[in-house]
């Protein structure tokens, strides 16, 4: 993985965190979003970044969300956009 890609993933996580600031539980919403839309490999890159750089460049909300995901805690879906249980028969 290049430093450029890592920096981009950090940027993306921070950007999502900024936009979920007004969710009732921003860190849980971010964790949910990353789990729903990011590949495992992308998440692993951020876990590695977090392990090496600690609390450096990541937004506190992003740090919390990644820590939850790294610990294997799958958060309950925070938004219906990422909740398969609510994407039933006519959800097309």
């Amino acid at each position, binding site marked *: 993985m290049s430093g450029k*890609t890592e920096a981009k993933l950090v940027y993306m996580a921070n950007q999502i965190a900024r936009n979920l600031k007004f969710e009732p539980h921003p860190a849980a919403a971010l964790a949910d979003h990353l789990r*729903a839309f990011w*590949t495992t*490999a992308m998440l692993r890159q951020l876990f590695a970044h977090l392990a090496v750089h600690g609390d450096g460049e990541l937004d506190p909300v992003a740090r919390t969300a990644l820590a939850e995901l790294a610990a294997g805690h799958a958060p309950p879906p925070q938004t219906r956009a990422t909740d*398969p*249980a609510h*994407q039933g028969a*006519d*959800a*097309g």
Partner: protein
Amino acid sequence: MGYERQADFGTPEVRSDTQVTLEIDGRAVTVPAGTTVMRAAAVAGGSIPKLCATDNLKQFGSCRLCLVEIDGMRGTPASCTTPVTEGMKVHTQTEKLARLRRGVMELYISDHPLDCLTCSANNDCELQDQAAAVGLRDVRYGYEGAHHLAAPTDASNPYFDFDATKCIVCSRCVRACDEVQGTLALTVEGRGFGSQISAGVKSDDFLSSECVSCGACVQACPTSALMEKAVTEIGKPERAVVTTCAYCGVGCTFRAEMRGEQLVRMVPWKDGKANRGHSCVKGRFAWGYAQHQDRILKPMVRESIDQPWRAVSWEEALGFAASRFKAIAATHGNNALGGIVSSRCTNEEGFLVQKLVRAGFGTNNVDTCARVCHSPTGYGLKTTFGTSAGTQDFDSVEESDVILVIGANPTDGHPVFGSRMKKRLRQGAKLIVIDPRRTDLVRSPHVEADYHLPLRPGTNVAVLSALAHVIVTEGLVNEAFVRERCDWDEFQHWAEFVSQERNSPEFLEPVTGVRADLVRGAARLYATGGNGAIYYGLGVTEHSQGSSTVMAIANLAMATGNIGRRGVGVNPLRGQNNVQGACDMGSFPHELSGYRHVSDAATRALFEAEWGVKIDPEPGLRIPNMLDAATDGLFKGLYIQGEDILQSDPDTKHVAAGLAAMDCVIVHDLFLNETANYAHVFLPGSSFLEKDGTFTNAERRIQPVRKVMEPLNGYQDWEVTQELARALGLDWNYTHPSQIMDEIARLTPSFAGVNYARLDAEGSLQWPVNDAAPDGSPIMHVDGFVRGKGKFVVTDYVPTDERTGPRFPLLLTTGRILSQYNVGAQTRRTENSVWHAEDLLEIHPTDAENRGIKSGDWVRLASRSGETTLRATVTDRVAPGVVYTTFHHPATQANVVTTDYSDWATNCPEYKVTAVQITPSNGPSEWQEDYAAQARQARRIAGSAMEPAE
């Protein structure tokens, strides 16, 4: 079907709850009140002679050929302007009428060339038909007096001629331009015998006039005065096939009129439910690319991209591709492979590509070009309403009282719907336009926006927050609707947020650049003006807050109760013909068809049982992530069907680097596009004229695409994908796309009731089509939101990180124009380039003067990502500080300038905001020269003297 003209009832259909019964020539007929006698006669199976009447135009009453006699009524009224009444007794064939009609017809023919046998309209001419119908045998008037038989022909338009000698001045063309297209380019100049049809002012010809070449006038003309050049050159069509246009997301239905295997013309089909018989210059005329000499018809391969292409057999090409992909999977794993589904191909073809990726490649690394256009629509509307699609059909606009257009330019991007919208505006609907540019909708003949909010690019969310602030703080919320239909707690949270002073129009004015009083006026109008409908386009989605903007729009619609009935709604205007369908078909890396997440075990189990393979429960890579992974050496093989990511995706240099880093890029396309410069395998594609399938338009309308000629490359695209799958060891045996649709229906609840037999019988179906909605769903969320309660989402304005500064002080925004389409691969290979031969940079006079730039000057357009050169046009359509260009021409490559900033939720690129500097230039940039040299090198074909042009 064979060739016959579409039925013409003479005057438009009338809707009424009251039925009227009358008698025509002794036969009883019942029609809605308000129907004309002419239409009633046609409904009854009869035919009254006519020339100036046609059923997509209001009755005019000028030709005097449709006279009838009515018991109890004096004289011989014109049937086209006489409404039916209960018990009326009409006579359409009497000796008196025959004499009158012959007299009228004799006058017409006395000033008309008698060259029927050599006329391009011979046997397809209403004048000829009517002369026969009235029994005209002799013309008593000679040609010695004044006549129009020496009038010149205007051949300036590349697609049709105006032969004034054949014109009978019936005004159908003028009325079509006024009523159907809404451009009002044509007029009748002069009076009496001197009357003649004129495009604009006298000095104009059709090409130099304001005519937009929609073809409505040609379609309306009852003679050969306005005639397609192709008919003159090829001859009268012999058969017609109804099919769906492959340009924008309006999804117009056309009759492809053929002579043998040759397409003669595309004529809009009056029964088409999206276009209602109208067309634009692209769908009507710009189909020549399908037979263009640049098409590559034989497969090609090469070991590496620095080598020339080698034409090979299909077997060799597919074997080469399969062995490379197998080798990549063996060495780097399945997740080193991926595919891109085209939004231009059919639903069935898209479904097969994502199936190939998931079942064949063994990964969810599949994406579609919706990533770079409407992915935020999917996210935003799914989150708020529960459905990743627009809420209305196009007919709905006829009942709108207030139309709010944000980030869309429908008269250019979706012209047929733009015309329907303008028709409603001419009837009195109010208009709000939120756009940095003064688009044509803001002010054009008979249309003027009540409010134009010329916001600074990148501030959509701030403007929408300000609108919401006014609606909430001034007590304009439809509380009954919100309490019944939406989550009340979430609404209160949102209402408290937007009510904060920092979201007021006054506070945000310095941010958005929009006067607070305009915002307040627009908010009041939208909230209180009756049925409010929002239409939006890529000016909403292609931002770092694209998804937030979509949700902010949904919030406004819910707060005002403008959801769930005709005339209202949230309506994304989809860019490409099948963007909606590609998304529906499971082309995103995180979901299967019908927008069901891959992590859902029950959904996966359905597909696993049908396909006999395990499906990865983890989401795959999006296009930009694929390219990042490629530059990191982790992603090695990509199958791209019908998309030119090198030209259409942002930050061209990064795209090129990603493609160049792969071991095998398969491009499946009509042409050697820009992406093919980095490809190892080229699989020839088939045009929409050469395949069967379906497209789904912006209304969720699934429409048949029908093969009108054999594929020039030998195979339809779904067959090519199937052969690639078989080369990779998959046992696929589809023999017709209807079988693929049956599989889609089995696996996708919203398509459960869709099949080809129904589509043939009903013309189209709007999903969801299932037990809950057996006839489809023209309007969504009628009795409740699909997700249950509508969800208000707080959308805080977060400024883009793309900022202007001393080095890059201007903001670039991009878009498309009427005559060209996206990367131009199709339209550049047609005569449409007459109107737009190159991309131009629009710059405000103040910014131009500060830089010493005049219209026509070459300028250097530079950003942090790269630079290019193009010519400038100085105009106050753009505000000071904002510049604008299109991305239709690879020589310009506007996307070398755009950045890799993207929407926070979906990674849809931020095409609409790039900080740039403009300076005078005297020629192409170094990058452009290098790119041109690389492209020349990459397009070489071994053994071919010719280099195919892109």
